């Protein structure tokens, strides 16, 4: 425990320009203490990877950042999570507005059973981001371009999104998430259902998205974390064990648990 504190504090010390600040975050599922006292600062316009063995709480923590855990009755979150210095668990915060600002991409591609166009246009529509049809068309096109899907999708905009390949579907979900002009993009193992080629495309995309968003990605694959992220956080049994520059985590980890994990001895 003491070790965790030390590393977390040290990580905060090296941060500049932080977008998300988590202080003493605890998450409970009923009686289970799923996240234990996590402190982390996530910088703007960087890719931060959460790694760790299954059940270590990395996805749970990710879902706290846009309050997706609100939908689970037995889930309780304590501590402070600040985005741009505003507490997102403040009673005045409407999760709907929060989720427009913090977009999310899920593990399994989950396009709506609607057309490609409607998938991307849905978010802007419900948030009133487009006043005219032309505006909406523009948002759809630019989102699909940013998601590197425009060339494949432009001729079939009104065909069902569920008819695309897995990799295309996941990029469609990314386009859908960025269509609401979020500032932060959360990705929960976005490539775990994809083949290597689709994975490479999505990783390339994540690197480009870094220009405009702060990206937080949960991944099982350490190679992926090493490829796409600038910062890496290692979770183990609900603790944030170590958080530092990706290079440092993979070459010179401070905590023995991190070292065992990246060398494949635990997890």
């Amino acid at each position, binding site marked *: 425990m003491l070790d965790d504190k030390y590393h977390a504090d040290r990580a905060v010390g090296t941060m500049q320009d932080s977008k998300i600040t988590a202080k003493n975050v605890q998450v409970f599922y009923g009686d289970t203490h799923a996240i234990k006292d996590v402190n982390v600062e996530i910088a703007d316009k960087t890719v931060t990877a959460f790694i760790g063995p299954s059940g270590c709480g990395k996805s749970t923590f990710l879902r706290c950042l*846009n309050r*997706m855990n609100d*939908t689970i*009755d037995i889930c309780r979150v304590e501590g402070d999570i600040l985005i741009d210095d505003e507490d997102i668990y403040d009673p005045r915060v409407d999760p*709907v*507005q*929060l*989720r*427009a600002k913090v*977009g*999310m*991409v*899920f593990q*399994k591609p*989950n*396009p*709506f*059973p609607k057309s490609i166009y409607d998938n991307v246009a*849905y*978010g802007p529509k*419900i*948030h009133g981001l487009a006043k005219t049809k032309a505006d909406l068309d523009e948002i759809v096109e630019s989102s699909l371009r940013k998601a590197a899907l425009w060339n494949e999708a432009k001729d079939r905009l009104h065909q069902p999104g*569920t008819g695309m390949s897995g990799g295309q579907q996941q990029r469609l*979900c990314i386009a*859908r*998430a960025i*269509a*609401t002009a979020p500032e932060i993009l959360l990705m929960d193992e976005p490539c775990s259902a994809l083949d290597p080629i689709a994975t490479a495309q999505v990783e390339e995309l994540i690197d480009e998205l870094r220009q405009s968003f702060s990206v937080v990605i949960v991944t099982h694959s350490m190679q992926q974390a090493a490829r796409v992220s600038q910062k890496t956080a290692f979770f183990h049994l609900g603790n944030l064990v170590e958080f530092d520059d990706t290079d440092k985590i993979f070459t010179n980890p401070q905590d023995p648990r991190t070292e065992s994990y990246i060398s494949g001895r635990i997890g």
Partner: protein
Amino acid sequence: MTLETADITPPATPSGKGKSLLTQDARTKKRNAAEIRFKAYGIAALAFSILFLAMLLFAIVRNGVPAFTQTFVTIEVELPADVLDKNGNRDIDDIKKVSTFGYNPLIQDALVAATADIETEVADGDLKKMLSSSAGATVRNAVIANPDLIGQTVEFELLASSRVDGYMKGRVVREDLARDRNLDAAHLDIVDALSQTGGVTRKFNWDFILGADASESRPEQAGMGVAMLGSVFMMLVVLLLSLPIGVAASIYLEEFAPQNWITDLIEVNISNLAAVPSIVFGILGLAVFIQFAHLPQSAPLVGGLTLTLMTLPTIVISTRASLKAVPPSIRSAALGVGASEMQTVFHHVLPLAMPGILTGTIIGLAQALGETAPLLLIGMVGYIASNYPDGIASGFLDPNSAMPAQIFEWAKRADPAYYERAWGGIIILLVFLMTMNIIAIILRRRFERRW
């Protein structure tokens, strides 16, 4: 298991390479035999159910189809002005003063004229036993509808009595008539003679499908139409109330309500309500809608309200099941782009659950359509001498029956002619139900989407 047996039993093949794959060992043989037996049971069960279905359909068609045809007697009735319109000014009120009894002598004269060539011992006054007692009313209605007929001789197709009709359909034989004071065997000779010249014919009877119920003594006149309208009005009430209430309740319970002992209790009770005998709902309807709320007795509105109570659990259960079947990833996706919980439900979850909801609703409606027991208690079973309702309001509020209640009513009447009509009524009811099922299938196909 396989490993153990392999250890115990020596290899079967002489080469010593282990068991041959070409011969089945005892275990496999046993397993295959069990499989074949199970398949045989299934086929036998299926064959049984198909056999019973075929028997049911055969019985219904054989007994029910004759109800759709009816025997008519064609006679030329003279409509003398001095009897029907004494003042001679064709005033409709004066014409109406002549009752149906006033028409009976005219019909008797016409019958005598029609049978003039036939040698018979039947007295002139008894000839009218061949006709339905509704004959007078039929002629009178025609005259009132068109007073210009007065003074002419007009050809009428009048309903034959149920005995004559039964004779034409082979249900009544001469021996039966010895103890029957409604008709004599001599009448049948006349019928035989007339049917050769085309005076007595059997043809399709729209009035059975479209007409109103008739009193116990006139089965030949009874029809299903008014009861059918009663059923339609009841179904309207059931649909308009149970679909929105049931779907709204399910959405709340499934998507919004917190999971605690209260919602658990509600859930258990809804499941129990679906299994409550329908007559319990009938007595509840009687107590609440008639005795407490003072709604009119025998009215389709009350019937519909009572059946709504009965249908709601079915709709709630099927709607909740189809909401549960929507993949959670769709909910996450919608919430993830910032849709509110209500937008998530109405934009994404509900459309995907729609086929299931519609199927459940139509099954519930079909159940309600075929329900008789609750109607017993709110006065919708019995001879309800009703005509077509005058409008929408009277359709809901005037005393009426319903199709299954009408069938029940016919089945318990004494005259064997009603037995045939009960079977015929079943055919109409089944056609109704089949139509609803086809609509359900079409709606399902239309709303079904893959994801």
